[in-house]
């Protein structure tokens, strides 16, 4: 028999090396964008982790042309964040699927791939080591040069030095070379930075691009969003696999204690009810459960109606003040309304939706609503039409009801979703899948925002109408006086002064009041002779 298959195993680093398209490194221009983005997001996370107002300095230098018609660049990002402990640095930057982002806590990155993928890509395209300098603010600054052993998925340290940290500096510097195409990536990169500034108005970001141009995104508010807390899993998100893991590691002696200790918002009485429904003795040791009992328990937990929704303390929304500051700073609109929705949950993961609407001023008329999408403070730039927000705005909203014309009005909508787990559809982190719970919250937020915009526009129009009103009287009363005088054959025109005075002082009935039987005659003009 011929053609027998050969079976083999590959490492995760090797897998992503072979399939780098799916992580956002499909072309030189995309690679530049993805690299900057991953590094900036890691920096911002590292700052917020230690409650420091972020300062991120980015430098991209062009080195020489590459053989494929693109260029080689040196990329360097420095932040004032938490820093990485010296002994973790090699793995954190030289091993795929290693990192600090696998817990149930809101962070920007999700897959634990980004930073290492960027370094991996740089290594593949230039075969040069990466340079990492970091300190957690203690007495030492750690300084590494390393490469990734792709087949083994292990870091390979080429050089390691320790410096004395005289100034108590904390933060991380990442520097490496890579192939890329900045010219083509530039619009997206600048767009990304601008949008990042919208949701991080408390950050100070500078970027020196390969042409030597300096872009500054200044801090306009000195308030950080409240920090997220780590949380236990919510029972709704549990499956048998999770239960197995927890049973293996628990120290609890009874099922009742097991549920209370390892799950979010489960108290004694709720634990009892759940176990009763699952036909399990609350005092039994969790270690004694059979596979089918584990499976039953998981099913009961997922379908039990009385759990409280997950606590949102593990989330860190921007808050209305920060979001509004960011929108005003970067978009400079005539009108802004922002709203933070109450916490909600999907599949046991808590989330909060924040919605902003911006009208007029610096918002351009593009023939459509300008949509800014953010997930855990990351701007989402690609594949807008696949995103649930796009669906909400274009398919679910009836804008006519809010007297808004998306094709004509200068309008921007800002959607920020924060969650312990963002439901991306792809590793490229570009758009959200349409979970019904999230869709509903976005829709309600956009509705509230639209309602407030409508009220603003109505007030604005009312004011303008009042101004026009007097002008109309001043224009037409003299004519009515003149022609009625001519028609009736009087010599002297009547005095319109008293009537004009009434208009300006008393304020006549509003136009709306005159409708009905005695209203204005609104028959439309017709052609002579037709009927």
């Amino acid at each position, binding site marked *: 028999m011929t053609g027998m298959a050969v079976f083999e195993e590959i490492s995760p680093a090797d897998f992503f090396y072979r399939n780098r398209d799916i992580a956002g490194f499909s072309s030189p221009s995309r690679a530049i964008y993805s690299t900057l983005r991953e590094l900036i997001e890691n920096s911002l996370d590292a700052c917020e982790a230690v409650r420091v107002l972020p300062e991120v300095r980015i430098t991209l230098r062009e080195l020489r042309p590459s053989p494929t018609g693109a260029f080689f660049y040196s990329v360097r990002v420095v932040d004032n964040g938490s820093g990485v402990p010296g002994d973790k640095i090699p793995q954190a930057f030289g091993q795929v699927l290693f990192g600090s982002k696998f817990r149930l806590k809101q962070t920007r990155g999700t897959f634990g791939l980004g930073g290492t993928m960027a370094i991996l890509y740089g290594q593949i395209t230039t075969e040069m080591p990466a340079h990492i300098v970091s300190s957690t603010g203690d007495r030492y600054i750690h300084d590494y040069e390393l490469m990734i052993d792709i087949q083994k998925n292990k870091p390979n340290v080429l050089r390691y030095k320790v410096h004395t940290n005289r100034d108590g500096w904390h933060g991380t510097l990442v520097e490496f070379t890579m192939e890329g195409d900045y010219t083509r990536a530039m619009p997206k990169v600048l767009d990304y930075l601008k949008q990042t500034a919208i949701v991080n108005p408390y950050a100070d970001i500078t970027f020196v691009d390969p042409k030597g141009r300096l872009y500054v995104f200044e801090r306009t508010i000195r308030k950080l969003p409240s920090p997220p807390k780590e949380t236990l899993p919510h029972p709704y998100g549990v499956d048998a696999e999770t239960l197995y893991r927890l049973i293996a590691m628990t120290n609890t002696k009874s099922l009742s204690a097991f549920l209370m200790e390892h799950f979010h918002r489960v108290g004694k009485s709720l634990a009892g009810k759940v176990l009763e429904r699952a036909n399990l003795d609350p005092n039994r040791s969790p270690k004694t459960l059979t596979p089918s009992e584990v499976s039953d328990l998981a099913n009961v937990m997922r379908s039990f109606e009385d759990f409280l929704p997950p606590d949102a303390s593990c989330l860190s929304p921007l808050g209305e003040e920060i979001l509004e500051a960011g929108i005003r700073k970067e978009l400079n609109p005539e009108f802004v309304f922002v709203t933070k929705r109450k916490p909600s949950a999907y599949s046991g993961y808590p989330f909060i939706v924040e919605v902003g609407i911006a009208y007029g001023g610096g918002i351009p008329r593009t023939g459509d609503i300008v949509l800014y999408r953010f997930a855990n403070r990351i701007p989402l730039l690609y594949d807008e039409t696949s995103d649930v927000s796009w669906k909400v705005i274009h398919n679910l909203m009836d804008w006519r009801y809010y007297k808004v014309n998306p094709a004509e009005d200068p309008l921007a909508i800002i959607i920020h979703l924060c969650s312990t787990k963002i439901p991306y559809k792809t590793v490229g982190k570009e758009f959200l899948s349409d979970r019904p719970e999230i869709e509903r919250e976005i829709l309600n937020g956009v509705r509230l925002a639209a309602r407030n915009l409508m009220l603003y526009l109505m007030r604005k129009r009312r004011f303008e109408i009042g101004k026009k*009103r007097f002008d*109309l*009287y001043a*224009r*037409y*009363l003299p*004519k*009515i*006086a003149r*022609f*009625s*005088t*001519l*028609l*009736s*054959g*009087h010599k002297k025109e*009547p*005095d*319109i002064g*008293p*009537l004009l005075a*009434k208009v300006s002082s008393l304020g*006549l*009935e509003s*136009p709306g009041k*005159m409708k009905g*039987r*005695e*209203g*204005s*005659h*609104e*028959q*439309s*003009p*017709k052609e*002579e*002779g*037709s*009927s």
Partner: protein
Amino acid sequence: MSRALRKKEVLERLKALGEGVYTQMQRGIFPAVRMASRSVRNIDYDPHLRQYVLGDQKVLRSARNVRHLRPLAQLLWAGHVARSLVSQGKTSTLRDLFYMAQADEVHFKDQAESDNIVTDLETILGYAREDFHVFPEERSSIFGDLTIEYTVPGYEGRRLNLMSHPDGLVIGPTLTSAEFVHCNAKICIVIEKGAMFTRFVEEKAYERFKALLIQTAGQPPRATRRLIRRLNQELGLPVIIFTDGDPWGMHIATVIISGSANAAHLRELATPDAKWCGVYATDIVNYKLPSDPLTELDIKRLYELKKDPRYEGELWKREIDMFLKIRRKAEQEAFSRYGLTYIVDKYLPDKLKELAL
């Protein structure tokens, strides 16, 4: 009512309009003008008069309402212009009026707006705009053995027999205001299209049927409708109407017979005893006329006509149903398939017999 008397009354009513507004303003109250509503809900068919009339609902144009300011100013201006035209014996058109407004700095955003104000003025005065000398631009024409005497300045007392010119005489302000002196015709045949009018003249239908021929060129202007009414009322001529065989042709006949909802505020335009003599839907079948399928618009129109009180007679019902059944329509010229003379030699005699005329 004599022409002189009409003129006097028009002028008096115009003055009363101005006087009312003037007095209110002098008393320091926001002036208002009340008139019959022309909204659809206030238009009723009067079976006695056999035409549309306005009901009792009124509307108020009041300067209290800011949206009424401009129409009120426009209305008074239009009254002022009407007064000048009537006193000076001049005529004008709706379009002239639209431009004249600019001289007095009265703004109309388009001619539709100024036309509508003229209709307001008609409603208030109870007189058609021809009575204050505003004429339409479209013209119909007439031919036949009727002698008229002009009343317009410069032609007073001069007479003309309307058989003088076989291509037809234009029905304009001078003919409309002329008196009838002598008539040898026994019937008035109203024809929708100029080509058919020429055919009737050529085939000497005016001799064979002792007929006055009028061509309307589509929906007849009001001046023509009034002339037809006068021929019927003053001279006792029976009137038959010959149109294309489709809902639009039927409606030309109906507007001549029963007036239009648009002119419900006016009287003396309708000729209730006039008869529609074709092209019927049944003619399309009986004469095997070349025909076209009804369009969706045609069909929609037919269903509207079914609900219209003016179409309650047997004939209308039968023909509307037949149109809807055969779903086809035909033009007057369709008779040409049997040769050019067929319509006068065969069809018209058949029809007169059928209508017992």
